């Protein structure tokens, strides 16, 4: 069986919190020797003292629990943005550069401005380029935030917040393995879709408030397109719920861990992509590409005709937020596809060692999950850099005339296959 690298995020964060509290406590004791009234506060944080007074243990204090939750959320946000967002942008930039017969970003660690050693003979632009995105972010932070003169200032400033926060909300319910998640909601998938669906409002508001014709047209296009493609996406999930009977991502993945058919040594897992839901998988992936505003469907910011679409008037880090969080949505979308159709973190090889009864994973679940998420993303990147952009009326035609009937057909297929028992419910 498998084992996640993080067995329980809350417990891990609790240990972290207690360690931080211990350090704070030592500092408080040190201060208390100078400022005596602080002694009581220091003793309140001291587990040994609490034991002596038979108070509740420190870990059970509501304040500490709240801090632990905050730390857990921070860990997920840092993991999603500082690691996965940067890595995904790096993967995309390197990958499409290779498609276009060039090297792409090549900034190496030697080009850091504060590097203390002699840099004259070091190759500053022959590295992997991972630092380039960080450098871009720093550059955007230094830039001035310009608000257009006739813009509706409040709305103009609110919409990046709305987009960024709703994107981060996705990661509250998105599990990275059977232990690495913030909240295990019964309706996790529905929560993720709810968070996804908030962004069109932000896009529309930002497009309107900038008082620019390009942003207005871009916002209108974004709203029309995202609305049209959210429907087949949700219909596909409804079809999938026929099989899963649950909207909890952990349950859905657990159902896919068994083996469907054994072909000699190779066992085909019971992923939903191998079920009659293969049509649903295709429809869901196409809709997800539209929801991520990737190139065949990137008409909201078609840089050919609408300078930068609804993000035209943003500058500085506000532009960085609305621009960079597209990749975060892409990660979330790829993770959703992986959980729903590609077996989540279940994989063929789990090397787990038991060291004194504690499972130590060599290939943890997170590795499989990340591998699948990045593979799905690379396929998306590949498609989006080899096809031109589709026109708005063609996009809406595809959405309303093709994808919605297909997704309704998936519901029929699901109901039929359940009724005749073609696919056993896990």
């Amino acid at each position: 069986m498998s084992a996640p690298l993080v067995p329980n995020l809350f417990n891990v964060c609790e240990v972290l919190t207690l360690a931080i509290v211990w350090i704070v406590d030592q500092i408080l004791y040190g201060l208390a020797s100078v400022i005596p009234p602080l002694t009581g506060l220091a003793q309140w944080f001291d587990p040994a003292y609490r034991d002596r007074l038979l108070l509740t243990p420190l870990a059970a204090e509501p304040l500490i629990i709240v801090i632990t939750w905050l730390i857990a959320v921070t860990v997920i946000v840092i993991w999603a943005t500082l690691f996965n967002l940067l890595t995904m942008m790096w993967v995309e930039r390197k990958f499409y550069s290779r498609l276009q017969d060039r090297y792409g970003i090549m900034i190496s660690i030697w080009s850091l401005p504060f590097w203390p050693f002699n840099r004259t003979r070091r190759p500053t632009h022959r590295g992997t380029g991972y630092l380039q995105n960080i450098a871009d972010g720093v550059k955007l932070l230094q830039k001035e935030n310009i608000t257009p003169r006739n813009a509706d200032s409040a709305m103009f400033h609110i919409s990046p917040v709305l987009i960024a926060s709703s994107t981060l909300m996705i990661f509250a319910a998105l599990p990275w393995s059977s232990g690495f998640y913030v909240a295990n909601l019964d309706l996790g998938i529905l929560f993720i879709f709810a968070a996804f669906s908030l962004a069109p409002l932000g896009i529309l508001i930002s497009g309107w408030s900038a008082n620019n014709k390009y942003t207005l047209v871009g916002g209108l296009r974004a709203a029309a397109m995202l609305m049209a493609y959210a429907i087949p996406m949700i219909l596909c999930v409804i079809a999938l719920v026929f099989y899963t009977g649950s909207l909890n991502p952990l349950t859905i993945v657990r159902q896919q861990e068994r083996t469907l058919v054994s072909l000699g040594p190779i066992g085909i897992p019971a992923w939903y992509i191998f079920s009659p839901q293969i049509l649903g998988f295709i429809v869901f992936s196409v809709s997800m590409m539209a929801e991520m505003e990737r190139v065949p469907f990137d008409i909201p910011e078609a840089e050919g005709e609408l300078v930068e679409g609804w993000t035209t008037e943003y500058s500085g880090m506000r532009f960085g937020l609305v621009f960079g969080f597209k990749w975060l949505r892409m990660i979330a979308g790829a993770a959703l596809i992986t959980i729903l159709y590609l077996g989540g973190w279940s994989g063929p090889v789990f090397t787990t060692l038991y060291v004194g009864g504690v499972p130590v994973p060599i290939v943890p679940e997170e590795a499989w999950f990340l591998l699948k998420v990045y593979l799905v993303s690379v396929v998306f990147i590949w498609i989006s850099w080899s096809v031109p952009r589709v026109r708005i009326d063609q996009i809406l035609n595809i959405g309303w005339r093709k994808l919605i009937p297909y997704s309704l057909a998936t519901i029929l297929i699901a109901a039929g296959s359940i009724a005749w028992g073609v696919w056993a419910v896990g």
Partner: protein
Amino acid sequence: MPEFWINMGPQHPMTHGLWNMKVKVDGETVTDAKPEIGYLHRGYEKIMEVREFQKNVVLTDRLCYVSSITWSHAYCLAVEKMMGIETPERGQWIRVVSLELQRIASHLMWLAAYGPDLGLLTGLLWALRERELFLDLIQLMSGARMNQNYPRVGGVRNDLPENFEAMCRRSIEHFLKKVDNEYQRVFQESKVFRMRTEGVGRISAADAINWGVTGPNLRACGVDVDLRRLDPYETYEQIDFEPQVWHDGGAGDSYARFICRFNELRESCQIILQALEKMPKSGAYRVKAPRRAEGEGYAKTEDSRGEALFYVIGDGDDRPYRVKIRSPVFCTMAATPLMLRGNKLADSVAILGSVDVCVGEMDK
């Protein structure tokens, strides 16, 4: 939603150069369009009156910076006709080779710009990668990548370098392979590309002729007009080639324009190969041109974008009395509102990219 005007330019990713396309949209549908040009007007016809005949070649190079040789060649041809001199045969063949090389480089630049217009950035980098081959050949021939200053009144500046022929053959062989395997797949055979270009920006053959549209844009309407065939200059009459005309249905749309230009890439390669074959291996490549001349010279050539026309009058001085330039893009631009009306806003990019605008020659 009320109709409003959208400025596609002058600072806009769609405009390849500095001009402004005002587009009136009703929602997403273009109801009217108005090109605004003249941002790059440099007063060419006037400047050329104060410079000597031979020195004007430098100016005409800069008329269209992606298709320099074809423009300076047209000027040289007009001046030669005025002076009544004839280029030696080898000079004419070298001119044909350089013209076709320049045509390929120019069409590749257009292809490179058309890709990102439709959201396909990969096309840009691929086309520029192969353009490099032809720029290298041109550099080998003339010494410069841009603004080559290569044709001269009475011939060309210098002879072909050694083993130019072998290098040319090698590059063309490599290029034709890339055209068949890569460009054709990513552009012509791509379903999304055809969805974007087929049936948009349609202009009838009658309209196109009335508005003065020439070159590949006119051939895409099904009109078999190619000055290299109809009114051969240099040694084009000795070359066996097929002008790329759109014969199927649905003529005059962006896809037809794309196909005509795209096939011209292959056709130009064949012309170069034939010219290298039939070219005399040695001989004079230039005759001495007189310094002063009197009379009228008139030359029209098949430029990469249409019919380029030079009309030069000399009054016995060493500089022209009057020069008139007919720019093909200038006339095509006047017809773009016809193509744009009724299409979607996103199509304006697919249309204006397919007519291949070069602002330098348009504004003169």
